[in-house]
């Protein structure tokens, strides 16, 4: 039997050779067959979305989406992939909500455009629009669990970029009836999505951090796992994207971004951002693509905001971002103390500029 302990171990091991579910799939299929009701129904609803997470899920290598559909979930609703359309599609939402109450899983991709409900209309019932702002909480209330995939669903993400024209918010800021699990990333890695779903099915809610991210995948900083960390300690810094060495000076946001990209890598492990010569832009961070992550090529702490913008993201993010950046300062200072920083040492990084306003200074709510 697939114990939780073994599952967790497999999840972190994946990076070695095989992918998450190559190791997992045989056990998983057996375990899911034993669940009452079999494969659980999944409704995948998009808000202010680019569909990039559906596409990323379809890039899942082991298991391929085919196996996910055959062995793991019963994907009842997906704007991109579902065969039925029109009323027949809308009917599936109502049927699943009613007949699979407390059994189905709601996956949300894209944020919730609270400030402009007309921005996302997912269908119609009897000629009248179904707004994502209403459909998502309505389904969440009846779901067994809610998973927000991608940075937009988790934290508002690119859809919430200043000045946030649609007043988009992350699902967990809107849905209160259920604990929402956040699987950020732009897009989310397929292993993060499949791993979270499987944990949910077999063992219930995964352990999460203060941003409701599964610790399994988001407990470490990109910077801490980065293969170029030695260059950082040796004071070897790339002067331009594509250069050798640590990419901190060309804007790397690895020191404030929690994700296991450096060991897991993307697209079946073939590559990942820093390995391709580019700084991490913090696409899994709560305030991406603003706050501490912008401008993408500006060195951390060098935060410039467009004139007239009072605040950036969820206020709690700022506090954590600042604390983490201070942490880098400390980390660098420790490097100096240990004399591990060579001739090309850089000045200690300052914390991101505090933007004005307190907890309630969010714009366009």
């Amino acid at each position, binding site marked *: 039997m697939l114990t939780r302990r073994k599952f967790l171990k497999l999840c972190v091991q994946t990076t070695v050779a095989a992918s998450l579910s190559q190791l997992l799939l045989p056990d998983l299929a057996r375990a899911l067959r034993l669940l009452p009701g079999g494969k659980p129904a999944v409704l995948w609803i998009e808000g202010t979305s680019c569909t*990039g*997470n559906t596409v990323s899920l379809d890039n899942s290598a082991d298991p391929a989406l085919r196996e996910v559909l055959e062995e793991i979930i019963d994907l009842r609703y997906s704007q991109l992939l579902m065969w039925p359309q*029109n009323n027949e599609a809308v009917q599936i939402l109502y049927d699943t909500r009613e007949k699979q109450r407390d059994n189905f899983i709601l996956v949300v991709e894209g944020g919730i455009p609270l400030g402009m409900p007309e921005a996302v209309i997912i269908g119609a019932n009897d000629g009248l629009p179904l707004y994502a702002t209403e459909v998502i909480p309505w389904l969440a209330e009846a779901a067994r669990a809610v998973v927000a995939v991608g940075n937009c669903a988790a934290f508002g993400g690119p859809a919430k970029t200043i000045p946030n024209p649609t007043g988009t918010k992350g699902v967990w800021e809107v849905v209160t009836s259920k604990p929402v699990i956040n699987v950020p990333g732009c897009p989310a890695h397929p292993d993060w999505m499949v791993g979270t779903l499987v944990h949910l099915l077999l063992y219930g809610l995964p352990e999460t951090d203060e941003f409701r991210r599964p610790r399994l995948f988001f407990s470490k900083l990109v910077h801490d796992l980065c293969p170029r960390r030695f260059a950082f300690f040796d004071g070897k810094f790339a002067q331009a*994207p594509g250069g050798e060495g640590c990419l901190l000076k060309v804007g790397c946001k690895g020191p404030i971004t929690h994700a296991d990209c450096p060991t897991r890598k993307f697209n079946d492990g073939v590559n990942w*951002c820093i390995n391709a010569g580019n700084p991490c832009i913090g696409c899994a961070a709560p305030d991406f693509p603003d706050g501490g992550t912008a401008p993408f090529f500006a060195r951390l702490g060098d935060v410039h905001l467009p004139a007239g913008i009072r605040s950036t993201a969820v206020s709690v993010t700022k506090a954590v971002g600042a604390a983490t950046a201070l942490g880098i300062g400390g980390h660098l200072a420790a490097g100096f103390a240990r004399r591990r920083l060579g001739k090309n040492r850089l000045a200690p990084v300052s914390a991101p500029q505090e933007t004005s306003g307190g907890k309630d200074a969010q714009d366009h709510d």
Partner: protein
Amino acid sequence: MRKITINPLTRTHGYFSVELEIRDGRVSEARASGLLFRGFEQMLQGRAPHDAVYLTQRICGICSSAHAITGAQALEDAFRIEVPHNGLLLRNLMYGADTLQNHLRFLYLLVIPDYISAPPGAPGGAPRRGDYRLPKPVQSRIQQHYLEALETSGMAHKAVAVFGGKAPHLQAIVAGGVTEKVAADKVVRFQSLLSHLDKFIRDKLLPDVEDISRCYADYFAVGTGYGNLLSFGQYRVGAKGAGRVFPAGAVRFGQKQEALQAGLITREISHSWYHGREEPLAPLQEHSQPAPNKQAGYSWIQAPRYEELPFEGGPLARLWLAGIYRNGISVMDRLMARALEAKEIAVRMNDWLRQLVPGGPTINWLDPLPASGEGSGMSDSMRGPLAHWLQSENGRISVYRIVTPSAWNLSPRDGQGRRGPLEEALIGTPVADPDNPVEAGRVIRSFDPCISCAVHVLQRDGASRLWRQI
């Protein structure tokens, strides 16, 4: 006369609905509505220009390389940056692989369900009714390929990531070139993935589309539309990337090919949910604001026009202008052109791989950029003509404008009441059963609609019907 609305029209990128009037068994009027708005042009204002290459990719999760390359070209034009030859080749390779990814996903996951019955495990289950004409063995073969395509399309994205870092939303394309290096192991890996894709295209995709086109030959006469074709040119080749594999140009129905004149591109908002000046304007002159309650509006998509006329873009326009495929303009011609283009691109990609110089420069990085500049990037993406325009002042973007292929294809009416290309193509489509308008779905999907891209219908005229059972 009967009025029907298809909402949601599934198997598209982003939310979309179409309202049809049906008279004597044929579509007599059509309105297409994009139902997703995020406002990227507003978001880009005030940002560092380099950010545009990454942020604009977030418009669309299926064609991210198109926005990356076009955005980078806009910056290179504005700030006079030249991309090393290796960098151009790597971009072509990523663009090509991403296009194969798109075409495989489009044809198998989005289109083929209109022509075959659903295999077990199909998302959402089998539709209640359909018009399935293929002989049983052919049908089960294509069902099998549908499942295989779920995996093979991921392989195409893997090829993009070999040089792009990850896909979708690749990281290695920046203004000035590509940050990834040309190394033997990467070239070999890309080559190996490409040969798998090439084999799938030749052995499965092309025969499948040909079989469908034989059994549904009537669709060579459905969805014809205006017959105006437009391409901004794709895949830069030759010295300084001045040439294009697929040439830029325009063809008005039945007339001779013309050279593209960028100054003839306008967009307007008379039937879109935006407030602002309503006459056709050059994109950089247009400063509209979202207005979801505008009475005359019925879509989030604006109306791009070329010399004030609606034009369609995509593989058919590209292959037509390149002289590779000129059979006709219809639903089936669009599908055939897409499949043929996949084959054609795979051949070119092998050439580009051979031209790469290992260890050679791939990037000309310029930072800080000059404080001000103005430029444009024009390219043809998976679905057709894509252009980005940018103005920057004091080191920040002051205006950013994006006109996407799906805006060309799915646009609503313009100020003169002319329908968008998809709307026009729907006119005359036979609909046997208005309760199950599969024919209209086929016409619409032949354009590979991407609302995520197009917007960058419905009046909010009452309470939501969420609470009422259907």
